[in-house]
């Protein structure tokens, strides 16, 4: 073996690796009352502190506190709980179906349900969503049929994407849910263009985009921040910091500070929020949406959460992080937290939750059965084979017609 250099390189490390004891007490978590809520049209440079701090509403005991409490009616909280629960059960079901070979692949959002659900609730239906593969909650909150989502995942004859996309890469035009790309982060800067067009047309719709903290390293995020800032586009730029990017800890992507701070470099209001607190996420999203609609431009939001399960069905997280690290996560489980909150307010009970889960499970079973009746990935029926050549262009040019013909021979 040859000589070795005496390297002085700094290597960003994971806080904890397998067989270590995760202890997140080093995280500074302000209490809900510590964080002031500025007017939604406040000058960005007067509210920089929000990027270093963290907006919370539910305190450690799951009581709603502080200036950011959105004071949502109980009915809406219950609806939020319902959709979060549905999201979790939906994920569990499809994950199991993948394990049974019915799906080629699947991505859960377990532990992060509050983000998509609360943000969908805080936005209007005319607002355009530019999600990643981990915001299935947006679809469920916007009322996408379970059957349709499932058909999309098993590429059958009723798949609205004609069998072309991997599971989890949904598209739903009528729901203003943009086609999810397999290429990370590209949607982030596209959302800004969409929002610019909305402003150009004089409309009130805003755009909302999501990106993972790992993917935030891609150029598209920089361009999104820059273009959004330059043209003050009505767009919410949401960075979901779930601590992990496959096996890579957020320390590799973050630069030793919060992600939210990155928005300050573009003079954007930049807010870090407890992503496991439906109320806090709702409040921040509402604030930012109102700002955008009033002409105040974009907001950059870091949603602080934890990816409770593996990256996808393709990996085993125990190989790169402590087993059950999630249970040491100081911001807990968003579903459990909202449930506790509602129980404490005497608006809910463990029994009711069980009942809810039972009903939703039934719905899922029924939907899955129906979905499979339209075909399976392995055996079909799928879309007609010749549809493979559709949509490359609006009208099929001669060379594709020739190839289609050749295939059919």
């Amino acid at each position, binding site marked *: 073996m040859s000589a070795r250099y005496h390297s002085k390189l700094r290597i960003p490390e994971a806080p904890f690796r397998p067989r270590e004891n995760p202890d997140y007490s080093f995280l500074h978590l302000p209490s809900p009352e510590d964080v002031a809520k500025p007017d939604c049209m406040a000058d960005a440079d007067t509210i920089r502190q929000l990027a270093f701090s963290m907006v919370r509403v539910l305190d450690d005991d799951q009581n709603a506190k502080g200036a950011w409490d959105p004071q949502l009616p109980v009915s809406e909280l219950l609806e939020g709980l319902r959709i979060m629960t549905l999201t979790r059960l939906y994920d569990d079901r499809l994950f199991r179906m993948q394990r049974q070979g019915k799906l080629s692949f699947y991505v859960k959002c377990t532990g992060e349900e509050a983000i998509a659900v609360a943000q969908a609730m805080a936005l209007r239906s005319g607002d355009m969503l530019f999600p990643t593969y981990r915001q299935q909650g947006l679809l469920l909150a916007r009322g996408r049929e379970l059957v349709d989502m499932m058909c999309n995942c098993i590429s059958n004859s009723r798949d609205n994407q004609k069998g072309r996309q991997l599971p989890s890469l949904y*598209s739903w035009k009528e729901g203003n849910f943009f086609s999810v790309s397999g290429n990370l982060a590209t949607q982030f800067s*596209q959302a*800004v263009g*969409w929002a*610019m*067009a909305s402003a150009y047309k004089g409309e009130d719709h805003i755009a909302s985009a999501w990106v993972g903290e790992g993917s935030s390293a891609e150029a598209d995020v920089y*361009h999104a921040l820059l*273009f959004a800032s330059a043209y003050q586009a009505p767009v919410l730029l949401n960075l979901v910091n779930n601590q992990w990017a496959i096996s890579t800890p957020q320390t590799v992507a973050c630069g030793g500070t919060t992600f939210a701070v990155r928005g300050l470099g573009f003079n954007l209001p930049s807010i870090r929020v407890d992503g496991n607190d439906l109320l806090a996420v709702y409040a921040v999203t509402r604030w930012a949406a109102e700002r955008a609609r009033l002409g105040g431009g974009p907001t950059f939001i870091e949603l602080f959460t934890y990816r409770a399960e593996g990256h996808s069905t393709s990996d085993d997280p125990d190989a790169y992080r402590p087993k059950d690290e999630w249970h040491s996560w100081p911001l807990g489980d968003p579903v459990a937290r909202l449930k506790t909150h509602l129980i404490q307010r005497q608006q809910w009970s463990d029994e009711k939750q069980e009942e809810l889960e039972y009903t939703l499970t039934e719905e899922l079973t029924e939907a899955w059965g129906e979905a499979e009746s339209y075909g399976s990935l392995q055996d079909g029926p799928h879309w007609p084979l010749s549809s493979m050549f559709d*949509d490359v262009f609006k009208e099929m040019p001669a*060379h594709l017609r020739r190839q289609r013909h050749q295939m059919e021979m």
Partner: protein
Amino acid sequence: MASMNMVQAINSALDITMERDQNVLCLGEDVGYFGGVFRCTAGLQEKHGQHRVLDTPIAEAGIVAAAIGMGVNGLRPVAEIQFADYIYPAFDQIVSELARLRYRSSGEFYAPVTIRSPCGGGIRGGQTHSQSPEGIFTHVCGLKVVMPSNPYDAKGLLISAIEDDDPIIYFEPKRCYNGPFDGDPDKAAQSWNGHPKGEVPEVYYTIPIGEAAIVRPGSAVTVLTYGTMVHVAEAAIERSDIDAEQIDLRTLLPLDLEAVAESVQKTRRCVVVHEATRTGGYGAELVADVQEECFWHLEAPIQRVTGWDTPYPHAFEWDYFPGQDRIIAAMRCALEV
């Protein structure tokens, strides 16, 4: 009818489409107040307003991404990439997103974006102001690729491109902006003034995407050209006294294979000309197509005349450029047997 150079023709196409459809807007580096480094957007911001001709940050990926988002939201953005050499930072947004959006969403979403970009050498621009990257884009399914060679086509094709619901890469051979360059750098520059293709209607008209044009009918050999090389080959044919049939492809994808095959089946010989580097260039596809369609008619190997497989060198520009002599030699080669 007016006499226009290619810059004016492009400007006119943009002006007219913006006039007709408020969903058309232009964006790019220096395209707004200044009117573009080649002046293609000159006067448009003043006329159509700051909101429709946007100066952007220097971020080609950001420009294309913004255009995609705008396209998804109902606009017809025309993005300028200042030089084709600088289109690569936007490559992922073009290839992974723009080209595939309609397919992956099964038609739910699409972005009718036109990307304009000056390409080609012969302006002493060195290796980063001279490239012809069309061959990289013709391999990407979902994109249409257009390259006009003269003002008349430039205008008609650009209007078609902007009105087309598919994404289009529209390359402008910058050496022909001001005149039909015949490949001889020592000759006095010619202008479009007086050239039949420099006569351009001031009004709206279109030229269909996907149709080649016959520059010159002939019977001895088919010469396939596009962009600047149309004029170089035309002069070469003239000089050579060979009765060549010359085609200006105009659209590279989808290719007008019918016109190409018909010609080669008649002449039984073929020369393919482009300025881009040889290996893996668009010419390879043309050769492959022609030999597939016309194998039994061919009486000699198809010749390729192209830029060498090196970056465009500053000092040796004219040794790099595939000029008339090389085209004549290739035609003779094709005729030898």
